[in-house]
């Protein structure tokens, strides 16, 4: 009886990771500081503009809704996570802290929406910065 061939399936060749370049690092930092800025550097004008508008509108609406902007803290874990999320908005967060906006309001029912808008704007900007990085190293079109 013929022996069945039991050769192990050939391992799938993993695509080589693209090397990190100084340009990609610059693009990522700019993308974090200015929403859509990384895409502008990479000449993805429409994507950059849409990202800028989306993050900026959400952040500004959050402030206008009397949302709370978190400061660096070592208190409640949710406060710390809120700070990390807010920080993702880059210059928007820095300017807001400098101007002492975003103190939050317990009088408005929708102030909590504002707080979430601000955090999510920051998190979306982080996603956008990672996207700019992937474009800069050539992993994405």
């Amino acid at each position, binding site marked *: 009886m013929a022996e069945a061939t039991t050769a192990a399936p050939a391992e799938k060749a993993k695509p080589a990771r693209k090397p990190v370049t100084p340009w990609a690092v610059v693009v990522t930092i700019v993308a974090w500081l200015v929403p859509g800025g990384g895409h502008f550097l990479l000449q993805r004008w429409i*994507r950059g503009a*849409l*990202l800028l*508008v*989306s*993050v900026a*509108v*959400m952040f500004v*609406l959050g402030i*206008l*809704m*009397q949302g709370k902007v978190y400061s660096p803290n070592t208190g409640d874990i949710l406060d710390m996570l809120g700070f990390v999320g807010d920080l993702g908005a880059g210059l928007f967060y820095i300017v807001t802290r400098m101007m002492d906006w975003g103190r939050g*309001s317990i009088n*408005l*029912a*929708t102030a909590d*929406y504002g707080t*979430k*808008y601000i955090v*999510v704007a920051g998190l*979306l900007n982080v*996603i*956008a910065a*990672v*996207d700019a990085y992937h474009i800069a190293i050539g992993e*994405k*079109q």
Partner: protein
Amino acid sequence: MSLELSHFSAALIFAFFTSIVFGITQRNTPREQVRYGIECFVFFMIGLTIAGWLMWLLRR
């Protein structure tokens, strides 16, 4: 200056802009990006409607 949106309009604006960013960042070609952005928006709205009705039922 203060802005007071209704719960629905706040959720609608949230879904709209979040879908734009998801569409741009999670897909490669412009066509796929538009499609995925619309999908995200539709799912946000479906989830919003279901959550709204669930809360209405819980309140009764």
